[in-house]
């Protein structure tokens, strides 16, 4: 048995040894240990180095509030996790753990030089040290900080584990399965409530697990726990262990993370590692208990210095003595019990040092029985020891004067500064807190949620009080749900009640500048830092926090917030509630990204929408691009073509012969009803009244602010019906906007709006040969140039399928768009490809489509526009129905800023050298040699290589661009400025004759 293990103590199984490794050395522990308790059983306290000063550190707690004992754990490739709390990691066979923030190793760390340089790292050092000289930031400070930054090392490989998620409803949700939580769950369940009880530990019991000497209704604490567990199971209570409630959201909606496999020797193949529960509860009981506060004195961070309650837990729950010669320093009765338990287990406790002048007689008597010396009215002025505490110095305090020092040899220092009620989840509900000046603690006040808060989390102390209060909370919860509940009471003997006193920093006789009394262990913030922040003008605790970083580490100041507040209040000469409490935010403890992502990863990250023709494209080697949620064929490479070659070939095919394009993703909205034309008149800039059925028109949609929101061809199917198309990405937005106006501004209009995006598959045929390909497939319609001119629409049959045929062109060539019911899309596509074979038909993708439209200067909303572009800016003033008195956005087009000169206008840009392609998004200036920052007069919106023109082309918005044709502008780039000439936006077939063939 390891040296510090105490036979017969603890809930660990001495029959089940477990081997694990820490920093490359193999150790053994027992089933039921945590990594921390197993290392402590070997006398090992030094488990890590601190973040800023690289000071040696050991565990200070035994729970999830642990700031120091953070380690890296691994379980094979991709399964490395930094900052695992050694106090929470259950021991498993083969666990591999490593210490952090040290190089080359834990006992000798080069970074500890920071400790010697600590005056440089005082409060606000980020703001002070790195301000000057300016260019030092990029070259010196930032690289050095980056190299040193980070708590632990980040994992590099992809996480192979899966993470689950579940939604649930429950009547009563109890958070924390200590005595109060168990009493609440039992009471509510006995009343018939549907109860869920969650606890972050591997078993229920909370503090009772560390206090086996208590007896309840004549049963020992652990027997009582086992019986209650059985009863809870019988009552059908859902018990979630290893489950941390991380956040409390609106209307009793809580997020909880359940750890499923980290404690298992072998994780079953495919088993999820964690599960995120999202639970909506009728009523919530918060019984999270309280956290013990450290005392603030010089050298309170040496390994071996820990909370007294933690030592009691290591002893009673894990059967581990944290040392051979522990001394106790306290301002609260609770630490006395820890001393008694240790003494009773055969550990020599030389002294209990209490800061209070008066201590209960029964405690003094118990100490005397165990031959423990008692010193009251004392302060601690220092500790010594390099990698482990070896002694402490205590001094009496009388009338504010610190007296003669006395030194005690020790290998452990167990401290208690009192207890802080855990109000984290309570505070997530935006509940109010009230300051209890007696207890020096914030206590729960009011919450708008349907909740109870019970036991130590509302400042009660002792098992009897916790049980009674928990039962009352359980009863209140059941009654709130309409169930009659009875009050339960339990008879506790050997209860450990207690009170205490709270301090800021303990009095000292040393020069304040030489005292290193740590408040926030994880961020290495000392009491001196907090006083310095106050001295330098910080008044609110939120400012003190940001200036010193106290409470900003991964533990969110669970141990430090109240101490920091007390010290700040003292320094400001005011009371803690006037300084304020920092806001607790979810998550309660650090949570893996995996738990948040859950099932939403890889292909399930979001929906991939596929068109009916997607399968054909996949079979023909399409390279995909995501467009909104759609995946679209970007190009179809042949042989070893790269994108450029494939796109150039596809473009040439359309210009010279015929190409086919899957346009199914186009948004489509059916606008129907007696007032359809009136509705369209009000929504779009264009005039629709005179558009005859069978004709189509390019429509432009503005926001009420006058800026272009969407565009698309609109066909009039009948007097009361329009087939509206939208951009691929804009379909849902446009329909929402239409619905908004229809429902809320013009409810008098008799119109129905229906999304038909997914009902129609669309094949676009473009090129001079398009009609010849289509002719043999169409029935019931004459598609000759005269009978079916540009911008026509008609219902007919194509390849035997009922079809709605448009004649339009987004490429500048003769073009058709064949709409068929989606289920026929694939068959239509194949029929078109078959029919087109003789004409050399070429499938083309979105990239060629983009190039072809850019050659014609057709905009893509969202690429060439950015939400600040008017129709006039685009040269699309012609779309505006001049006789219409109103449409969405019309009034804004008359606003002074929108008619002022100097607006950016849509133009073409041609680089001097046709081989040079501008970068989309690049800024445009008049003079590339002007001083920085340059005046930017526009930017490049689209840029491609044009196969038809044999050179690069670009589209851009430029101030007054249309008045500056032929002028040269400049595009400064990292490799040098590129000159370009402003040109009309239509590069190809400016007369538009080719589309009218």
């Amino acid at each position, binding site marked *: 048995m390891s040296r510090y293990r105490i036979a017969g103590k603890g809930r660990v199984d001495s029959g089940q040894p477990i081997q694990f490794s820490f920093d490359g050395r193999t150790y053994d522990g027992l089933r039921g240990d945590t990594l921390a308790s197993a290392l402590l059983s070997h006398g090992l306290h030094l488990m890590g180095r601190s973040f800023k000063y690289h000071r040696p550190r050991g565990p200070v707690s035994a729970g999830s509030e642990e700031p120091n004992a953070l380690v890296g754990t691994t379980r094979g490739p991709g399964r490395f996790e930094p900052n695992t709390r050694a106090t929470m990691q259950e021991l498993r066979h083969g666990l591999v753990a490593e210490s952090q923030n040290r190089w080359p190793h834990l006992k000798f760390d080069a970074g500890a030089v920071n400790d010697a340089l600590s005056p440089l790292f005082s409060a606000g050092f980020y703001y002070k040290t790195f301000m000057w000289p300016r260019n030092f930031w990029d070259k010196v400070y930032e690289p050095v900080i980056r190299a040193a930054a980070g708590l632990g090392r980040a994992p590099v490989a992809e996480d192979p584990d899966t993470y689950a998620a579940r939604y649930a409803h429950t009547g009563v949700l109890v958070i924390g399965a200590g005595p109060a939580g168990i009493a609440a769950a039992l009471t509510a369940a006995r009343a018939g409530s549907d109860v869920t009880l969650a606890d972050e530990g591997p078993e229920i019991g909370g503090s009772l697990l560390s206090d086996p000497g208590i007896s309840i209704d004549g049963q020992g604490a652990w027997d009582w726990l086992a019986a209650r567990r059985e009863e809870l199971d019988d009552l059908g209570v859902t018990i979630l262990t290893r489950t941390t409630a991380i956040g409390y*959201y*609106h*209307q009793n*909606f809580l997020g909880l993370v359940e750890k499923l496999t980290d404690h298992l020797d072998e994780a079953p193949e495919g088993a999820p590692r964690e599960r995120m529960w*999202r639970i*909506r509860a009728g009523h919530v009981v918060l019984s999270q208990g309280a956290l013990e506060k450290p005392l603030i004195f010089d050298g309170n961070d040496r390994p071996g210095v820990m909370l007294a309650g933690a030592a009691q837990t290591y002893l009673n729950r894990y059967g581990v003595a944290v040392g051979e010669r522990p001394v106790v320093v306290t301002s609260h009765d609770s630490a006395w019990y820890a001393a008694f338990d240790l003494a009773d287990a055969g550990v020599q406790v030389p002294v209990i040092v209490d800061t209070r002048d008066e201590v209960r007689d029964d405690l003094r008597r118990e100490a005397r029985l165990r031959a423990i010396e008692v010193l009251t009215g004392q302060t601690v002025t220092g500790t010594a020891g390099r990698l482990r505490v070896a002694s402490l110095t205590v001094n009496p305090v009388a009338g504010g004067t610190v007296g003669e020092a006395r030194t005690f040899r020790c290998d452990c220092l167990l401290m208690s500064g009192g207890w802080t009620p855990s109000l984290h989840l309570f505070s997530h509900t*935006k509940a109010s807190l009230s300051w209890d000046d007696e207890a020096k603690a914030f206590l729960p006040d009011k919450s*708008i949620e349907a909740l109870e808060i019970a036991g130590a989390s509302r400042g009660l102390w002792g098992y009897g009080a916790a049980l009674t209060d928990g039962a009352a909370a359980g009863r209140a919860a059941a009654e709130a749900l309409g169930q009659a509940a009875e009050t339960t009471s339990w008879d506790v003997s050997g209860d450990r009640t207690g009170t205490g006193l709270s301090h800021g920093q303990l009095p000292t006789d040393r020069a304040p500048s030489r005292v290193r009394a740590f408040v926030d262990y994880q961020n290495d913030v000392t009491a001196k830092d907090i006083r310095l922040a106050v001295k330098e003008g910080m008044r609110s605790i939120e400012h003190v926090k940001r200036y010193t970083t106290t409470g900003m580490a991964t533990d969110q100041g669970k141990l430090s917030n109240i101490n920091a507040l007390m010290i700040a209040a003292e320094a400001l000469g005011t009371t803690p509630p006037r300084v304020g409490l920092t806001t607790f935010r979810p998550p309660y403890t650090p949570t893996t990204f995996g738990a948040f992502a859950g099932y939403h990863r890889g292909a399930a990250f979001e929906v991939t929408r596929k068109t009916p023709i997607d399968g054909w494209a996949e079979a023909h080697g399409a390279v995909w691009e995501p467009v909104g949620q759609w995946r679209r064929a970007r190009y179809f490479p042949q042989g070893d073509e790269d994108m450029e070659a494939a796109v150039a070939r596809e473009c040439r095919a359309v210009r010279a012969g015929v190409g086919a394009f899957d346009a199914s993703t186009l948004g489509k909205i059916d606008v129907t009803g007696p007032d359809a034309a009136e509705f369209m008149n009000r929504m779009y800039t264009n005039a629709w009244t005179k558009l005859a059925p069978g004709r189509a028109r390019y429509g432009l949609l503005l926001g*009420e*602010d006058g800026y272009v929101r969407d565009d698309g061809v609109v066909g009039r199917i009948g007097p009361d019906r329009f087939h509206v198309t939208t951009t691929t990405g804009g379909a849902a937005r446009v329909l*929402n906007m239409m*619905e*908004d106006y229809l*429902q*809320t*501004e013009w*409810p008098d209009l008799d119109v129905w709006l229906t999304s038909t995006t997914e009902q129609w598959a669309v094949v676009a045929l473009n090129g001079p040969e398009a009609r010849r390909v289509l002719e043999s497939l169409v029935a019931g319609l004459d598609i000759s140039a005269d009978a079916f001119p540009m911008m026509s629409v008609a219902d007919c049959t194509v390849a035997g399928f009922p079809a709605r045929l448009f004649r339009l062109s987004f490429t500048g060539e003769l073009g058709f768009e064949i709409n068929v019911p989606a289920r026929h899309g694939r068959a239509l596509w194949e029929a078109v490809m078959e029919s087109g074979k003789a004409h050399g038909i070429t499938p083309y993708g979105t990239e060629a489509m983009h190039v072809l439209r850019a050659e014609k200067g057709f905009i893509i909303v969202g690429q060439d526009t950015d939400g600040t572009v008017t129709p006039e800016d685009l040269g699309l003033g012609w779309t505006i129905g001049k006789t219409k*008195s*109103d449409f969405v956005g*019309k*009034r*804004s087009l*008359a*606003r*002074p800023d929108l008619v002022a000169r100097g607006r950016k206008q849509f133009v073409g840009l041609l680089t001097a050298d046709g081989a040079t392609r501008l970068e989309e998004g690049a800024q445009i200036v008049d003079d590339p040699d002007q001083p920085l920052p340059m005046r930017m007069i526009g930017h490049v919106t689209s840029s491609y290589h044009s196969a038809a023109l044999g050179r690069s082309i670009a589209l851009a918005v430029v101030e007054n661009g249309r008045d500056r044709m032929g002028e040269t502008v400049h595009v400064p780039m990292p490799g040098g400025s590129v000159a370009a000439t402003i040109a009309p936006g239509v590069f190809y077939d400016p007369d538009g004759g080719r589309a009218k063939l």
Partner: protein
Amino acid sequence: MLLIHCPYCDESLPEMEFAYAGEAHIARPVDPNAVSDDEWRDHLFVRSNVRGPHYERWRHVHGCARFFNAVRDTVSDRVLGTYAAGAPRPSLADLGVEE
């Protein structure tokens, strides 16, 4: 996640089914051409930015798809009540809320 009561479906449903749609009771002028530039600017851009009960629009987009109005306390983020679009602006007392 809020529970929001859709006045048309008459059910309290998770926020995920709804989309926020800005402040309520801002009517588009009947004849926008008749309002001054400043009035139009205010109509477009100036909002009350209330601390406390805020009258706002929501759409039950993944349900009945209809727009309705809600009163939400911007401090507590609690929805105090909902009512049909076009209905007159209720007082807090109408909604049964203690001020």
